[in-house]
């Protein structure tokens, strides 16, 4: 049985971070009811021309397994139905700007009134409190606010904008926090309101640098460099735009590495023999290593280095990942069948449970409002005429 089987989520989330949270929960068996409306469709169901493409973004991945229903939350009967749904759920998740749920009549207090032990999870850019809590934001802004963007990039270049990994990291943190809240509820009988601030997730990911800065250090952008280790970088290989990451972690590894690249003389070269001097002279190492790496096929070189005990991996594209036997064996990459029969690669669970070998994704992208008979009929007990009347009134819309 899946670990979270029996848990039900009323999912009000939109965009990327919030839906990723409920996606992580649904991959472990939680029943996730996605609440949508034609009034303002989740923009991740739509195309994003600003990204330079015609199709939707991550919607297929994060909406898999989910059950879609329509609810117009600007209609009182829509709100009433939402509350009935919350009343039979363990978790209510949302990712609007702070204050929106309250304006809709769906604040934590409102939801507690219909289910006292509800766990409400709010995912927002800056949290539910604080002077910036009303700020709008997306992943690149989270990274900017949190310092992750400022600290990423070349030493002589500008900051780097974080993309969907930032959103999804927020969602992953939110799923983890939700699981913790479930444990708390089991112990105390009480629900709670979990407030996940995306900018705080970003800053937590450079928390060590912030701690160092609090003691007077001045962390800076440093490209692919490491504060201690060298060589530590990306090196060109025989094939165009195929880069090999190499990280030598100590002097013993350095000696092995020098021999492996046919430069045993470097092992005793005073510039490179010790970690400290090697790090100081790391720029001089790069052309030497590139002379070796650019004669090599990347995957073979990575395997050769790993065989010698040196951390190395090719900089992988999506094509590499999707076809990798290791990822496939772990079910970290799986094939998903869409309702139209199309098979596409998707990302499965990034962990394996000895008690549950099942796949994380068992259903493809839900049709808009496709689960209303089950949710409104079977779960909430509405009759067909009642459902039709709510549709006519555009409460279900």
């Amino acid at each position: 049985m899946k670990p979270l089987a029996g848990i039900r989520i009323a999912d009000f989330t939109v965009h990327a971070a919030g839906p990723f949270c409920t996606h992580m929960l649904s991959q472990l068996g939680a029943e996730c009811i996605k609440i949508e409306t034609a009034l303002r469709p989740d923009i991740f169901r739509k195309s994003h021309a600003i990204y330079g493409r015609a199709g939707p973004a991550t919607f297929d991945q994060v909406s898999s397994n989910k059950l879609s229903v329509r609810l117009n939350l600007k209609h009182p009967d829509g709100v009433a139905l939402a509350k009935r749904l919350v009343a039979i759920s363990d978790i209510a998740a949302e990712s609007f700007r702070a204050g929106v749920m309250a304006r809709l009549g769906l604040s934590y207090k409102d939801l507690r009134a219909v289910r006292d032990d509800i766990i409400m999870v709010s995912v927002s850019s800056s949290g539910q409190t604080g002077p910036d809590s009303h700020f709008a934001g997306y992943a690149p802004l989270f990274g900017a606010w949190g310092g992750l963007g400022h600290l990423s990039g070349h030493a002589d270049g500008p900051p780097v904008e974080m993309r969907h990994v930032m959103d999804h990291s927020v969602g992953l943190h939110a799923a983890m926090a939700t699981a913790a809240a479930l444990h708390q509820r089991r112990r105390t009988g009480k629900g709670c309101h979990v407030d996940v601030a995306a900018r705080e997730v970003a800053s937590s990911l450079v928390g060590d640098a912030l701690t160092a800065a609090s003691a007077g250090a001045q962390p800076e952008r440093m490209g692919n460099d490491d504060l201690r280790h060298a060589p530590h970088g990306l090196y060109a290989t025989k094939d165009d735009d195929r880069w090999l990451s190499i990280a030598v972690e100590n002097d013993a590894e350095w000696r092995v590495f020098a021999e492996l690249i046919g430069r045993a003389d470097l092992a005793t070269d005073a510039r490179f023999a010790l970690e400290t001097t090697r790090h100081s002279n790391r720029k001089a190492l790069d052309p030497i290593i590139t002379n070796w790496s650019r004669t090599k096929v990347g995957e073979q070189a990575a395997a050769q280095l790993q065989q010698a005990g040196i951390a190395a991996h090719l900089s992988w594209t999506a094509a590499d990942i999707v076809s990798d036997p290791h990822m496939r064996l772990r079910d970290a990459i799986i094939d998903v069948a869409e309702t139209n029969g199309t098979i596409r690669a998707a990302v499965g669970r990034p962990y394996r449970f000895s008690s549950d070998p099942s796949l994380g994704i068992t259903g493809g992208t839900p049709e808009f409002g496709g689960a209303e008979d089950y949710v409104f009929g079977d779960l909430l007990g509405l009759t067909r005429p009642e459902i039709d009347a709510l549709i006519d009134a555009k409460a279900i819309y």
Partner: protein
Amino acid sequence: MNSDKPLTGIRVIEHASGVAAAHAGRLFCLLGAETIMVEATGHSPLRQEPPFIDQEGSSSALFAYLAAGKRSTICDLTATAGKLAFDHLLATADILIDDTPVADRAALGLSPAQIAKNHPHLVHLSVLPFGAIGPKAGWKGTELNLIHAGGEGYLLPNGLSADLFPDRPPLKIAGHFAQMQGGVAAAYAGLAALWTDQGQFVDASVQDANVMVGAFGIQRFGDGSVEHRQTRSFRYGGVIECRDGFVELLMLEERQWQGLITLMGSPDWAHDPEFESVLGRSARGDEINRHIRAWARGWAVENLVARAQEQGVPMARYNEPAHILTGAHETERGIFLDVETENGTMVKVQSLPCRFCAQSLPIDGAVPRPGADQHLLEFGASDKRIGG
């Protein structure tokens, strides 16, 4: 000691030498689990990792961040007495986190079979760069390797940095992003396993966690397109330089674009009919960005961001560490806490990036000295839990 945290009453044993496993332990600890590090006789290697708090390099900020609030014991798992003490400790625990390489586990009594036999109640949470099974289970992986094994590294940098340095190799994200994804994924999996009330082995992989958060690229591939760092930039907006720093600007909705036009004083160029649609704007994104960049250079970051947010235009300052440590928003939310390091220095450590019912969870305790809680390895002493 706060006795009412989400994981109060849960005991976690952390046998970790890498960031990912230690980060999972940090999350458990801050959530209220009593988290006991079991360090080897040479102590956790993370104690020696930069960045450092002091110029002498005797106190690691990374370790302080990862270990604040945890307890520390030293135990030699190669010796019989150490194994016995460790076993006794495990008998009192709910979760064991371990990142020992697969090939070394059996000798230390840490194979899944050994743990399952002796401690069937336990959630045995393995956290490894490439997981515990599969052809690459034995591979080494540092932060640099893992951000690239997960796919995101190949796609960085994007935006302005990619424009400026098109011939440079791909770039990692700052710090330990990849390993921390591994840590949070592992912590989530550990909690889910614990939820089942069934002792079991959980095999978490840092690479898999990074592929998970990079799922966008996989979906795009399935849709028939491959992303590349030099083509996935936003067509307009992105990293914008101002008079005294950088801001990020991203507009996904029409009203946000209209807000920007208003903010810019409704310039003539913005009323080009082709700019009325997102497609039209995207096709001439470079031209739009030239206008935005020329305009933004005259602004101070703080003023511009405040005005932009008033207009509903998503914009943020690229905050430097000092901005975050002293920011009004961060200060009001109380996300940084004073923590004493193992050598007595006071530093700021961020709490969890989430709150439970308006509470910013405190960090209970200091950065532990090696073996500060050695008594927990004495028979009988470990039976009593904090907050249990």
